[in-house]
């Protein structure tokens, strides 16, 4: 006991207390997820105790498994569909906005920057209410469901693209484009041939972030859903979390988690690849974490 106390005694000299604290934090943040994944492989119906191992709740059960319960696998399809649309629309829209806002000098630029940053600090329930009411009361030609949800996802994720791409643009500076212009390139050519290739790592990184936050979103998807067939995975977890009779919900969450991580990992490797090809070096994980930190909600 005394040894433990002396071991912990000087927290800041040799950071033993911090080692212990960080280790406990990591265990606390990861282990509950691993336990939830373990229950998804239960043979029995319990979601709170371990009961053997099987794939019953993934494929085996003829009614309640992820494969056979349409409300479960359609939720996964809807999540992936929305994330794909969000990445495909938000990234080009956000890159153009970031480049325009960074180079544009004028009265409008500051205001436009302010508006895009305002989306970052707006709680989702506020944005969800705002979009729900606008689609019901004013823009009634846009139906609730996939289209409305996709518009919501694009609206809240655009700012992440702007932050990441703008950070990179400020680091690059305008010299390369100016050199291209001096050598006779048109404005568009200068952007396409000089600027865009240097922005590719930032573009890939923002694509990963948009994908991850779209998969994670709950409030916007729930507010703008038109019914069970446009529910996403988080919406399904919300509506069945307390009442679900089987571990099939855990299985759905596990499949979603694995897919998200695999897709994000492919994106990360792509990012590292294009970054290495552009001759940038340094701790890749560390730099990505810094991007992520700037891009958090």
């Amino acid at each position, binding site marked *: 006991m005394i040894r433990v106390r002396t071991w912990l005694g000087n927290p800041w000299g040799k950071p033993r207390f*911090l080692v212990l604290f960080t280790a406990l934090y990591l265990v606390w943040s990861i282990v*509950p997820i691993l336990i939830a994944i373990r229950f998804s492989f239960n043979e029995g119906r319990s979601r709170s*105790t371990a009961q053997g191992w099987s794939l019953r709740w993934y494929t085996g059960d003829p009614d309640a498994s992820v494969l056979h319960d349409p409300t479960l696998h359609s939720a996964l399809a809807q999540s992936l569909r929305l994330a794909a649309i969000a990445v495909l629309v938000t990234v080009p829209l956000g890159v153009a906005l970031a480049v325009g806002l960074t180079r*544009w000098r004028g009265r409008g630029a500051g205001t436009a920057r302010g508006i895009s940053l305002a989306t970052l600090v707006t709680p989702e329930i506020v944005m969800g*209410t705002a979009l729900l009411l606008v689609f019901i009361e004013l823009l009634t030609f846009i139906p609730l469901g996939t289209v409305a949800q996709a518009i919501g996802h694009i609206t809240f994720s655009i700012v992440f693209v702007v932050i990441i791409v703008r950070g990179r643009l400020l680091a690059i500076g305008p010299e390369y484009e100016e050199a291209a212009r001096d050598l006779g390139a048109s404005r568009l050519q200068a952007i396409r041939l000089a600027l865009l290739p240097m922005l590719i790592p930032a573009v890939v990184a923002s694509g990963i972030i948009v994908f991850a936050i779209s998969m994670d979103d709950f409030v916007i998807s729930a507010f703008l859903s038109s019914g069970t067939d446009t529910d996403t995975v988080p919406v399904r*977890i919300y509506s069945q979390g307390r009442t679900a009779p089987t571990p099939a919900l855990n299985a759905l969450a596990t499949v*979603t988690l694995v897919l998200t991580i695999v897709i994000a990992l492919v994106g990360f490797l792509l990012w590292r690849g294009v970054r290495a090809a552009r001759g940038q070096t340094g701790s890749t994980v560390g730099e990505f974490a810094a991007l992520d930190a700037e891009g958090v*909600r």
Partner: protein
Amino acid sequence: MSEPGRRVGADGGRENRFWAGLALPGVVWLCVFFLLPFYVILCVALGSLDPILLTPAPEWNPLQWNTAAFEFVLDNLFTPGAAFETVFVRTFFYVLIATTLSLLIAYPVAYYVARYGGRWKGLLLVGLIAPFFISYLMRMLAWINLLQDDGWVNSVLVWVGILDAPRNWLDGRASSVILGLVYGYVPFMVLPLYAFLDRIDRSLLEAARDLGASPFQAFRLVTLPLSTPAILAGVVIIALPMFGDYYTPDLLSGAPQTSLIGNQINLYIRGGQQVPVGAALVVVLMVFLTVLMGYYLFATARAQRRLGG
């Protein structure tokens, strides 16, 4: 770094228009799907209800705005013991406690990884980033599993002897909801704190030590003041979404005694027949959060000034 847009002269105006044009689609998008909806919230909150269908009838003309819903909300909010007052005070304390706990957890972790991560840094960072790729709702689902009557939390607590019998954790307990909020939001605080602490110039700490400060004094007098802006940013990053949270209490409690302001908004906007009241609640929440943001910007500016930066 030189100023962009150095090409002034005859070409300057056209150049600038070109960049503005590039930003235009994004700006239009945000105006239509972000600014316009806020006006619609106002028009619904200040409109009326269709007497037969009980659907909202927004009032688009500001000259004819009807303040009935606002009066109802504000009256209810400032009468001690009234429903909205109770919920708002509760929300404030839950957010305050959860944010404080998150800071107490996040700071040491971020500090350790930034200063002492060493060759483990990459792996530690993967651990810190991992929760970002696991949906918030799945992380709540994990705790629903653990906190069941026959779940592992009860088994462990009974086995260790802290509890005599399994406790019902998922039925209206503030502690479960606050645990859920901390578990859900703490990663969003760790990462910005890490990014900031990692950038602190070590020579400043060495200078403090050379001038005779103990390691703890160096931390208290150099690192801590330097990281004030990051602490403030981390608090804002997690407190703002917490004020709009309704799914955490719904999933980890589901009882009226842990209902938050977000639950009331969700109830009035999506379930109830009094949408204008819900819209007015959203406006009140926004005003409150704007004041909070204003204080944040003020405090950050003050901290920067103190550091002479």
